[in-house]
């Protein structure tokens, strides 16, 4: 749930993004330098579906009086509405259609983004106080100003398909992809023949082809000017399309559409180059090489342009609205524009980001702030991983979210991709390098340059600089936490607070609990959250033993120190255990470290007359068929062992009591 809260603080509809985002974040993910990037999008979907989304509220209060109008309820418009509302402004979204969502609803097929998901987010937005007015096309901006709106954001998208400009384009049986998709997504089941040819190489073309398959087409041919690598559509979607049976014909242009009353086929001419030497889109053909594809339906998806009403009085550049790149202002005061309407067709996440930017700029406008240039996303302030570090990092293959097999999925509009389960999500999340949240020498005056951190680091990260001081470069540190627990001067700490799950604080809470309620723990367990030992174990624990087992969640067992174990016994526990991911831990040496800490604690326990098996560790050697057994089984045995020791001590007390009783009876 914590993850979901963090996600929602920065993204207005994470559930939508979880399904369809093109994940530029994964391109920037530093795990890529090791093997494959972390599957951030899929993990966000997991967070959304399992993070108790119902319990995470989106609330907003009206602070300012300035009313804002947003034209178009696509991703740009909704994002702008969300952020303006969060900032405290009244917002009304005007949507010409009867349904909200823009391209998210009409352009993206159900198998990529189910309706319910979008509806959920819209409900949340209404719950925040955003007013939606559907079936309300805006004809004049002046009217809006007269109605009292002080700022208008024009985000009408780009919904008008370009025309092919070839012979036979006006025959029946040709439809543009936008119309086709809209009808499909509204459930209207547009009529298509048996042999469908789609023209275009972008995402819209791919969506149209896959939708055509699902509507029952026998053959679906996609024709595009670009080569495979030049195709602008998402590579994974191209792959899914091919798996489902779409035939992709690269480097072909359309010469003519054949047939008299009905379409019989499409004549293609070879495109020798889609881009010229300057990299500009400028197709060149070899008209002598042609082929004919059988077709009774042709869907065109060769680009869209915005339909900008003249009455708006907005200056354009080419087919899109002209905006100031800094303020997002159009030529009219108080009128802003964004999304596909000003950029041309782009991805949903770009529209979302643009909407957010617009909201901030509109806020600046209302509050009379000096327009400053766009705050650049801080350029990567973190360096590349050195080859030495990369070598030391455990290679774990990326867990792709499970897919429905192509034969099944091409028949239905159900989502193609399934969500992670708890285990796979944890396994994928473990691959994260925790960039920037690593260790730093917080107290350099305490550092005695003993070189322990240098020697125990599994990644050889700490360095000695010219002044013989120790530096721990943030761009190499893998945040395993081993140097933190080993530093003899306690001079090192982890940078980011969410990784520093304060074990001492948790234990102090338990200490207070004992003082107040008088209850004592039978067993205290330090459980690694990366291995889900808190969640899944707990569920099992409450079933078998109920109260008596107190869990202290830790973010990796490398953070537990020997004195924590002593403290646990001091709190009154009869048994203490440490449960971790074992061989599956994504960090090196955590098992040896944990065992060393346990050994140290046990030496003290042995001196004090404890049975050293009252302190044990569950560190499974492998994922399945582990010789130590499942966590539940191991824990049962441990509880049994501790319980019998406890019982023994109780029995000796009872014996004494009995004996004295029987004596009094005599």
């Amino acid at each position: 749930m914590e993850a979901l809260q963090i996600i929602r603080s920065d993204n207005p509809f994470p559930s939508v993004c979880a399904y369809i985002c093109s994940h530029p974040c994964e391109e920037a993910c530093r795990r890529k330098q090791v093997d494959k990037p972390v599957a951030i999008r899929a993990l966000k979907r997991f967070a959304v579906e399992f993070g108790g989304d119902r319990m995470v509220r989106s609330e907003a209060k009206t602070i300012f009086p300035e009313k804002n109008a947003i034209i178009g309820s696509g991703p740009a418009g909704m994002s702008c509405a969300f952020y303006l509302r969060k900032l405290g402004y009244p917002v009304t979204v005007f949507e010409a259609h009867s349904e909200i969502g823009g391209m998210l609803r009409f352009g993206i097929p159900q198998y990529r983004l189910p309706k319910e998901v979008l509806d959920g987010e819209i409900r949340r937005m209404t719950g925040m106080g955003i007013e939606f007015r559907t079936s309300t096309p805006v004809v004049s901006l002046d009217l809006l100003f007269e109605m009292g709106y002080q700022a208008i954001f024009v985000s009408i998208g780009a919904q008008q398909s370009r025309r092919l400009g070839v012979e036979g384009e006006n025959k029946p049986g040709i439809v543009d992809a936008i119309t086709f998709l809209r009808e499909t997504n509204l459930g209207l089941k547009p009529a298509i023949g048996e042999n469908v040819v789609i023209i275009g190489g972008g995402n819209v073309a791919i969506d149209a082809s896959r939708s055509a398959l699902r509507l029952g087409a026998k053959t679906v041919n996609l024709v595009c000017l670009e080569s495979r690598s030049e195709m602008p559509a998402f590579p994974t979607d191209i792959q899914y399309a091919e798996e489902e049976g779409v035939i992709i014909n690269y480097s072909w242009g359309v010469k003519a559409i054949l047939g008299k009353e009905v379409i019989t086929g499409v004549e293609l001419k070879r495109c020798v180059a889609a881009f010229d030497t300057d990299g500009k889109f400028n197709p060149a053909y070899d008209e002598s090489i042609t082929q004919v594809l059988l077709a009774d339906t042709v869907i065109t998806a060769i680009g869209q342009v915005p339909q900008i009403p003249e009455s708006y009085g907005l200056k354009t550049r080419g087919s899109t609205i002209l905006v100031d790149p800094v303020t997002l202002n159009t030529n009219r005061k108080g009128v802003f524009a964004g999304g596909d309407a000003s950029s041309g067709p782009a991805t949903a996440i770009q529209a979302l980001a643009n909407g957010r930017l617009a909201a901030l700029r509109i806020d600046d406008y209302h509050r009379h702030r000096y327009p400053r240039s766009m705050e650049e996303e801080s350029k990567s302030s973190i360096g590349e991983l050195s080859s030495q570090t990369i070598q030391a990092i455990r290679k774990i293959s990326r867990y792709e979210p499970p897919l429905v097999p192509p034969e099944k999925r091409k028949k239905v509009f159900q989502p193609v991709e399934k969500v992670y389960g708890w285990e796979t999500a944890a396994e994928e999340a473990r691959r994260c390098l925790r960039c920037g949240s690593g260790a730093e020498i917080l107290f350099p005056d305490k550092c005695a340059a003993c070189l322990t951190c240098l020697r125990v680091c599994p990644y050889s990260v700490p360095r000695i600089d010219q002044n013989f001081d120790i530096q721990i470069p943030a761009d190499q540190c893998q945040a395993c936490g081993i140097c933190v627990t080993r530093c003899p001067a306690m001079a090192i700490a982890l940078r980011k607070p969410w990784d520093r799950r304060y074990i001492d604080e948790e234990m102090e809470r338990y200490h207070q609990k004992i003082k107040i309620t008088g209850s004592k723990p039978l067993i205290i367990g330090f459980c690694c959250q990366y291995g889900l030992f808190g969640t899944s174990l707990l569920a099992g624990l409450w079933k078998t033993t109920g109260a008596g087992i107190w869990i202290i969640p830790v973010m990796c067992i490398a953070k537990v120190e020997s004195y924590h174990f002593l403290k646990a016994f001091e709190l009154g526990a009869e048994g203490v255990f440490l449960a971790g991911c074992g061989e599956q831990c994504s960090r090196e040496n955590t098992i040896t470290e944990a065992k060393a800490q346990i050994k140290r604690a046990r030496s003290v326990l042995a001196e004090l007359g404890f049975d050293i098996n009252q302190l044990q560790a569950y560190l499974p050697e492998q994922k399945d068929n582990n010789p130590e057994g499942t966590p539940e089984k191991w824990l049962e045995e441990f509880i049994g062992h501790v319980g019998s020791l406890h019982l023994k001590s109780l029995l000796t007390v009872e014996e004494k009591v009995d004996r004295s009783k029987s004596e009094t009876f005599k």
Partner: protein
Amino acid sequence: MIVANQKPLNEIWGMVAPYRRVLIVGCGTCMTVCGTGGEREVAFLHHALRLIESKSDQSNHIFSEYTIKRQCEPEFIEMLAEKIQDKDAVLSLGCGIGIQAIAERFDTLPVLPGVNTSIIGMSTMQGVWLEHCVACGECRLDETAGICPVARCAKGILNGPCGGTKNGKCESNRDMDCAWILIYKRLEKLGQLDKMRRYYPMRNFQVIPRPRRLIKLVAGGNGDGQLSL
């Protein structure tokens, strides 16, 4: 580095038990480096003592912790003054120097040793120190190719090796290299075997009489850097 070992836990508990409010003082230099008496070890000892107390029939101890940068400087020791005021005893995890320095400055309080100071050690790898110098005051490392026979020969002889060396190891400890075989090999490498052929007379054990004092003032003052009684 001065290297020490922590005393066994029951020995420490035995010393500390009669006193109610005990300040555990760590040292931020040598004792931190050898992992015996730095801030982390002070914390660990604190918890261990508390655990012992919770299992014993006593319950009146109040332990507190404080680590100073070094226990061999009077100015750093002075910084203990405030913390020490209400205490009944000090448990010092500093080396023998530090323990005595604290005892001298705060002579109304018992100062207990938490460690056994043992060697001047060279760190070879994490957690391992070898005694390579015994501060004899008569360094002759030029004669023995940089390997000290006084520290590293079990018998400390100057005309070695003795007859007990086997496989290059010392008769008293099969894991220890015979220092004189090491010296021989390195002198051979340096082409200086004639040094080993010299007769070395008996050591002057009065070079630095015990207790010893070395006066050396760095800036100003009148020390001349020479050893004196």
